[in-house]
């Protein structure tokens, strides 16, 4: 059962990154993930629930700058601005993944994001399985690591494994309450 859930996670991790970055003006093409890709900026979000683990988004200043909302603001983007933005991208990516998974009845809660800058950062999976995706975009690569441990008690009816109906996401939707 978890093998099929893993396929689903693999699919969403691969799709959600390019969908999100496209919303912010960056077109990504898929790459074969490398064992130890180089990245200098990272956004990180932790999650708990039916799945628990960590989402890590790794990239570089050129690509994160190319999709930054203030890139045309007339002043250079500082490292602080880029760090803030990669954290927000990790947050929005986790929101997108959570929305997809909730279509399948899976429930997770996630933390506020954090970000890091460094020259020789490396991902080391802590537990569970790592779902990987890598993309090339304007100025560099984006790498995604979704480390997830799946609860043993999850019951998955057959229809569970169908793709979520809302495959393009609900971003920009407004609900008046």
């Amino acid at each position, binding site marked *: 059962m978890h093998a099929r859930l893993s396929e689903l996670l693999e699919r969403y991790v691969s799709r959600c990154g390019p969908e999100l970055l496209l919303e912010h003006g960056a077109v990504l093409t898929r790459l074969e993930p490398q064992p130890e890709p180089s990245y200098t900026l990272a956004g990180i979000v932790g999650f708990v629930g039916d799945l628990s683990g960590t989402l890590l988004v790794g990239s570089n200043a050129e690509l994160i700058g190319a999709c930054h*909302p*203030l890139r045309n603001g007339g002043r250079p983007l500082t490292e602080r*601005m880029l760090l803030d933005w990669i954290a927000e991208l990790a*947050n929005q990516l986790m*929101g997108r993944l*959570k929305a997809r998974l909730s279509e399948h009845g899976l429930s997770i809660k996630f933390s506020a994001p954090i970000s890091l800058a460094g020259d020789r950062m490396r991902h080391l999976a802590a537990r569970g399985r790592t779902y990987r995706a890598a993309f090339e975009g304007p100025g560099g690569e984006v790498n995604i690591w979704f480390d997830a441990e799946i609860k043993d008690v999850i019951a998955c009816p057959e229809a569970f494994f169908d793709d979520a109906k809302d495959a393009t996401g609900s971003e*920009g*939707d407004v*609900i008046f*309450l």
Partner: protein
Amino acid sequence: MRRKVLIVDDSETMRAMVSSTLGATGFEVIEASDGVQGLARLEEHPDVQLVVCDVNMPRMSGLEMLQAMKREPRHADLTVLMLTAQSAPELVARAKTAGAKAWLVKPFKADRLVQVVNALSVAV
């Protein structure tokens, strides 16, 4: 007199985006980076008419801030727009129960935000 809006989001980028968008439509904008600071800003600026609030923030989440506002009679009638990367129905339901007026999912286009704020401002 310019309408005053409080933007509460832990992302500086999001605050800058929302601030620039609403500032250009005639709002006076003040900012806070989490729920605790948001409540403090409301004390400093009792003339705030609209609160635009993220959900997922450190120290105090947007839903916790909303609940705290509604418990305080001076802020209980403020119009609140939740602006968040999350769209889980149970969170939207909690926001509705707590008294939020609208829920907008990130990412969003600037004109969408203006549209929503204008719709809400009719009731402000």
